[in-house]
């Protein structure tokens, strides 16, 4: 049955929370294992920037929304992703990971995605953004959050991640509903959208930014001593949820993203992983200042509950 988006919007408005609802100075920060503490900063920093990237993605989708309700939902999601990033920054501060007012920099691969989003995301169609952003949410956001929730015993972190997870479950519900909606378009429209999207050179640049990001995050997870299967489980979830709807399956771009997910989780697919891992290595050699851009939307992160 189709989702009632008006009800969903009302629910989103009813379930709002703020940084000020959380007692950031409450005891529990000391419960983090010192070994984990050392590794956590770059990991959380990546997570925070991926939330920020998701936020920008939703901002682009709000522009393409076919109805005022969906537009408003995406505007809320845009802000909620920003809130998640803010909350993660506040956790880093709680755990003493930030020097003064420091906002940690993104890694090169995230930065490349930031640059791409800044330049091209508003020009992408909803059928492209609406299929790729959910993968980022499921795979990266979802998997990384799940990992931290399991590993970090700080009760405040648990509270924060519980709230973020509740938000994310609504995001995913809408994401798949919209994919289902897009899948209802006739073959001609779906084909034009798909072919029209792929003939843009910007999409090729986007793909070259997106593809190494997944492998890079896998490497980061492994470096943390975590089983990469956790990430793969999340990627597989994108496919398993999508497969439930025949209309989602009809979306060519869903098929591409989903198939690509299949390659990512299959480590023995050297045809895919060799070039992509090489790309990760190559991008890691890029001097950060060369790609570092600071669009205004990426400069709005704050750990302060009040302003």
């Amino acid at each position, binding site marked *: 049955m189709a989702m009632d988006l008006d009800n969903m919007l009302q629910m989103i*408005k009813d379930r*709002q*929370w*703020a*940084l*000020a609802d959380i007692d950031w100075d409450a005891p529990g920060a000391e419960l983090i294992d010192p070994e984990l503490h050392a590794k956590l900063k770059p990991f959380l920093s990546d997570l925070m920037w991926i939330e920020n990237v998701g936020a920008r993605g939703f901002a682009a989708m709000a*522009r393409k929304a076919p109805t*005022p309700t969906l537009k*408003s939902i995406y*505007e*809320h999601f845009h*802000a*909620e992703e*920003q*809130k998640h990033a*803010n*909350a993660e920054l506040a956790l880093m501060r709680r755990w003493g990971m930030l020097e003064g007012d420091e906002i940690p920099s993104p890694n090169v691969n995230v930065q490349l995605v930031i640059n791409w989003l800044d330049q091209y995301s*508003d020009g992408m169609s909803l059928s492209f953004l609406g299929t790729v952003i959910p993968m980022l949410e499921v795979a990266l956001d979802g998997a990384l959050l799940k990992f931290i929730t399991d590993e970090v015993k700080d009760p405040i972190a648990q509270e924060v991640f519980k709230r973020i997870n509740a938000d994310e479950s609504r995001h995913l519900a809408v994401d798949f509903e919209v994919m289902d909606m897009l899948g209802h378009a006739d073959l001609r429209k779906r084909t034009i959208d798909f072919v029209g999207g792929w003939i843009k050179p910007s999409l090729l640049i986007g793909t070259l930014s997106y593809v190494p990001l997944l492998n890079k995050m896998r490497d980061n997870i492994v470096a943390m001593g975590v089983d990469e299967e956790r990430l793969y489980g999340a990627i597989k979830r994108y496919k398993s949820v999508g497969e439930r709807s025949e209309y989602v399956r009809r979306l060519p771009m869903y098929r591409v993203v989903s198939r690509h997910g299949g390659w990512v989780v299959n480590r023995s697919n050297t045809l895919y992983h060799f070039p992509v891992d090489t790309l990760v290595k190559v991008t890691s050699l890029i001097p950060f200042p060369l790609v570092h851009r600071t*669009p*205004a*939307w990426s400069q*709005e992160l*704050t750990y*302060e*509950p*009040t*302003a």
Partner: protein
Amino acid sequence: MTHSVAIIGAGFAGIGAAIRLQDKGIDDYVVFERDTRVGGTWRDNTYPGAACDIPSRLYSYSFAPNPEWSHTYSGSAEILGYIDGMVESSGVAPHIRFEHTVTGVVYDADAGEWTISFEGREPERARAVIIASGPLANCSFPAIRGIEDYEGHKIHSARWDHDYDFTGKKVAVVGTGASGVQIVPELVQQAASVKVFQRTPGWVLPRINTETGEFTKSIYRRIPGAQQLARALWFWGHESVALGVVWNTPLTRVVEAVSKLHLRLQVRDPWLRRQLTPDFAAGCKRLLMTSDYYPALQRENCTLVTWPIARIAPKGIRTVEGVEHQFDCIVFATGFDVSKTGSPIPVTGLDGRVLADEWSGGAYAYRSVAVSGYPNLYVTFGPNSGPGHSSALVYMEAQIDYITDAIGQLLRNGWKALDVRADVQEEYNRGIQRRLTATTWNSGCSSWYLTDDGFNATMYPGFASQYVGQLRTVDLQDYRILVHEEADAAAVAAG
């Protein structure tokens, strides 16, 4: 005692109607005003920077030309002075009853009279009623979650608190419509910081407001026809804009391009430009005319906040990105409670029919001024009388001329009532709604022009000249003419 005419409201429309009644020799009229002074919208809207975005030469009555306008576009104080001047020079002042809040009007079909009731006063009766209370008369704080919990100072743009000192204060402005974009450039000069909460950006066009020199004023004073010529030039200039603003045409894209160029020239940061770029057709919501707003937004002490508002907390505004923005004062520039469904005051017509019930799905009228079943009752700025591209005063002048003509005929001929025919009214509205489908207002944005169901009961889909043209003559064949029984009997006897 029964008055010939009762006018409800002493704003631009009420005062204009009174003057035109006098001009037509109808002196037995009374104006009921709930406040203690005239001026309506321009009495209420005294926020810093309040001004009209239509040139004064056109935002005035042609029967009351004013050679003394100080600028092309006038501020609220000068416009209020113009209304005061009209009251003084026309002799309508003795007819105005202040502090008379009308609570309802009921038609007495036997007598052919209306009973007007008031808050705390005895009712009065009149042959004809002109509801000139206007669409921009009532305002309230918006229904934002938690607004009642806010502990700081709250100000509504239409009820400005002139005693509040903004110096050194942290201020929020909620709303970026016509009032918001005028308030922000003033507040940033006084307050320590200003955060502007925007839900939807509007199309902004530059406004070049030049001072009118003494020489030009003397030309207007001395040369007959100079003011009329200037007014005509402004009128036709605005008429040409209708092609891009009223209808969604290729010229609409030109209006958008001019606005985007204005934005490009005034705002350097691409993200801020994106936040300020509308995603609806220009004209769909009211165009904003200002050259000061974008520079004000970029001042050191000003920030544009586009995150959706989650709720208002005791100390400030919580937005969905999780931050509580704290303030000493919140200014709500959120507009007016425009009546698009229901009636501005309770009106009971023939056979006990209630106007609010008939208009519950969206207001409608005949040529925006009369409603079938409510004889001798007229409204100014009624359903589908809003201009998107021209001066409301041009439209209002046509309405009051038409209404006072109709009332003049009623009184001169000793008729009991003029009641517009239901079939004519229906046909008129079918045409209006059909024509509205091609306009920018119905092109997909949500605005105060539309009801929640998307019905447009507000705007007139055409040129100002068309609107004025349809109100030039009272076509009696469009009305049922009711006569008094004695006159009826006399007519039968004579026959």
